[in-house]
């Protein structure tokens, strides 16, 4: 298990190792690590920094800034509900409550059998058609509470 993890981390890092004169790309690297492992383990932060030739702080800054980056493993599906200004104005909170009711878990928690993890974020950059819900890589706009059940059906 651990070795498989190690290989996947190594592969992700290797694919992003900067070749001079290219500058290291921290965000791209963290996304690659997350793609390989499902999240970015903080214990590997020094190793990531070393491969990129940057400091721990530079990696930590990026990692803590982007809501797309996770430092904890999530369930099979990650639901993120936008709580930004536009979404809030368009009743995003009601959507969030509907989702919580439907999957029976609070923000930050995971459902039984690790099917869903629910998180909130701001802002998803989708304000024109808010409120916004993102499940894994797919973005849904103009979501209303009544659609929630059908929407989540699609994710096993």
């Amino acid at each position, binding site marked *: 298990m651990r070795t498989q993890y190690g290989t996947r981390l190594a592969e992700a890092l290797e694919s992003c190792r900067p070749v001079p004169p290219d500058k290291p790309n921290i965000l791209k690297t963290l996304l690659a690590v997350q793609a390989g492992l499902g999240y970015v383990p903080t214990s590997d932060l*020094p190793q990531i920094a070393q491969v990129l030739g940057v*400091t*721990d*702080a530079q990696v*930590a800054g990026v990692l803590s*800034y982007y809501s797309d980056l996770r430092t904890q493993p999530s369930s099979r599906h990650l639901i993120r509900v936008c709580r930004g200004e536009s979404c809030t104005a368009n009743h995003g909170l009601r959507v969030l409550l509907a989702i919580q009711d439907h999957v029976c878990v609070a923000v930050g928690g995971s459902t039984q059998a690790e099917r869903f993890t629910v998180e909130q974020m701001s802002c998803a950059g989708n304000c024109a058609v808010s409120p916004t819900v993102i499940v894994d890589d797919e973005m849904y706009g103009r979501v209303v509470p009544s659609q929630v059940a059908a929407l989540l059906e699609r994710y096993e």
Partner: protein
Amino acid sequence: MNLTINGRTVTAESGDTIFLAALKAGISIPSLCVSHQLAPFGSCRLCICEIDGQSGTPASCTTPVRPDMVVHTEGDRLRRHRHNIVELYLSEQPEGSGTSGPLRELALACGVDRVRYPAGAHSTRASVRDDSNPFFIFDNAACISCARCVRACDEIQGTHALTMFGRGFSVRPTAGGGSLISETAAFATSNCVSCGACVKECPTGALMEKTVLEQGMPTSIVRTTCAYCGVGCAFDAGVRDGRVVQMIPADDGPSNRGHACMKGRFGWTYNNAPDRLSVPLLRRGNDWEEISWESALDLVAQEFTRIKGAFGPDALATISSSRGTNEENYLFAKFMRCVIGTNHIDNCARVCHSATVTGMMDTLGASAATNSLQDLDVAQLIMVVGANPTESHPVVGSRIKQAHRRGVPLIVIDPRRTELARLADLHLQLRPGSNVALLNAMGHVLVKEGLLDRAFLAARTEGIEDWIKTVSDCSPKAAEAITGVPAHLIGQAARLYGSSGASYCCHGLGVTEHRWGSHGVIALCNLALATGNIGRPGTGINPLRGQNNVQGASDMGCLPTFFTGYQSLDDPKLATLHQTITGRPLPTKRGMKTPDMWDAAIAGRLKGLWIIGYDVAQTDPNLKKVREALKQVEFLVVQDLFLSETAKHAHLVLPGASFLERDGTFTNLERRIQRIRKAVDPPQGILPDWRVVCEVSNRMGYPMSYRHPSEIMDEIARLTPMFAGVSYDRLDQHTGLQWPVPTVMHEGTTLMHQETFPKGKARFVAVEYLPPGEAASKDYPFVLTTGRILQHYNCGAQTRRTDILELVDTDVLEMHPADMERLQLRDDEIVRVVSARGEALLPVVGSERVLLGHLFTSFHFPASTVNDLLSSSADDSSQCPEYKVSAVRVEPIERDELDPEDEVELRHMRRQLIT
């Protein structure tokens, strides 16, 4: 251009911000996050203004000026906004955290007397306090997340140890990985080098020196100059109740421009160390007897008189200190020349840059940095040879990193993969001791590809043909075999260096401390001459002098072969002048260099020796011989702050005053003479070194009656054309003076050799590669290089007596990981390093900074006896020792072999390599 601010017409330059234009005109705008050291940022919004014809309230610190713009920085709307902003900052502060000074003042100024938002209605700052750095704390409660600290670490220091963590309301600065790794020890686990730039920039006191927290804010300020390395950073020493509590680098310091490093900024607490000497100590067998100053001075005079009478002047010698002031160095030399009548005077430059002196004298005719640090601003290329400025001259290191970030190409020639080497566009990782082969091969490429500056060569130099002949045999391919550097990299480096337009070269002890050290310096000068990279802004040959006054000690004539200002000892005009001013003849016979003194002592020819502030018994190579020599001397006087290894051999030990306790001048690595000023009194009764010389001299029948060091400087000026225009009045302008200063009207010289060289034309000296004095062999398969690390300073006498010890408390042997694996060594395992001369015990760590087959260690701790390993091999012409190449082997040791005493010392080590 002109614009109007608050009804006043103000002149500004294009590119200025409104804030800057106002500042220049004396209009102050409330601000927190702006700093003239940093790029515009605009996060605190206090400096908002109104501009006619434009809506909104832009931040004046990020808005560039336009001609005829009409700006208002006061007014009801702005005042209301500022009031609200400050109130919002206050609302974030956790309950009971106690508002920090600057914020409280601002609140007062803006009339905020209460916060209208009820507690709990909004988020407050997380309570995070990090006191893991030995010198300062971070308290999130006082922070306003302006990111000035982060910007300081990035833009000024270039270490990137800080980041703004998180986003939105919860954003806050943190060191390293912050809460992702260990929030309360973020500084300790980060790559922070404790330069203190962030602390200085922080406007709120969220980052604060521990000394100030413990002892209070300074009540008075004294401008002085740092006494560690050769950069010569200007500092404001903050004093409270007769003690220094803070050292802040001065923004108008010409060499450091407000920046500093860990040692100067925080490493001065040795001044209050409990084991500082305060009374003269006389040896009684194996014990010390405290004696009065009177009897101590009498004794020196008596013994020196006796020895001179019995054995003649040549039985006495002095080694003065490149840590001491110019005035003191001059006086020691004067004492030897006028009172004793010999030129047996030397200083510790012998072991570091004496090869630079010789090499630059032979080619350029003057031995000092040709250019200034400000030239780093205009250089088109920077080449660093055998130097590790980010650790040994950290402020220069930061400046080079800044230039590199602006896009200036960087070449590093060094056997080690140092921080700069990792950043560099080209790192030529040569084998130790092969500098000349590499530099000649670069010359070969320059010649072959027609990159010589023919006009410069014809007008300003001689001897180019010899050099061309010599380098024509040094192809990059041949050099590759000697240096291990791929031929194409050598070619690339030569092309970059030769065609940049202005190539700045600085070098360090990696060039000089070799068997053929002065040849290395000559080879560098040849390259600069061949490409015309000398005598113009942004170019030059710039030795990075190691100690605060190593330049000055040599300038002051503490050399057996030169008088002040490198005047020749047999110059008849000088002889007359000397006689007139000092009343004594100038001895013309060359004196002994330090290594010759050891030989003379062992042979019984040297009977009396005076050593000032220089721990030869720890820092000189081949310590066995040095200690033997010290034992042979009949009368050894040692003057020091602490009972150093050398002092332990003395018959008489005189306590010294530290740089914070006396007046004088130091000369930095860009020839800048700067004042040091007394900030506090020395421990009771201690005489500054210059007074000691006067007292002894008086007792020996040659009165010296200076009332203040300034009078000594006046005498130096009269004796030395190069310093003729130097006086304390002029030095008290903050910029000091860069020599030569030939007249009192002369501004000083930032750039040497603009029109001519001291000898008229510069001379090429053809030098060929010769192998180092020692090579790896079957019995001694590793090549060991020694050097400094950031945290400590030379013999460590000072830095080991500060909290720097919390960071690094042992020397460490760095070995390539593949060698570690081959020898089956683990990190931190203690090994025995054996050379043909001696052995040392050191903890070993794997490090990619060194090449396969090479080792590196520092020499800051006496317990590691690193210098026992080194040979007496030295540069032929200058006798600069070969610290950089020793053949050794590494053996594992059994635990029970360790001396229990050492074991304690070694077990307590924690390594912290700057990676």
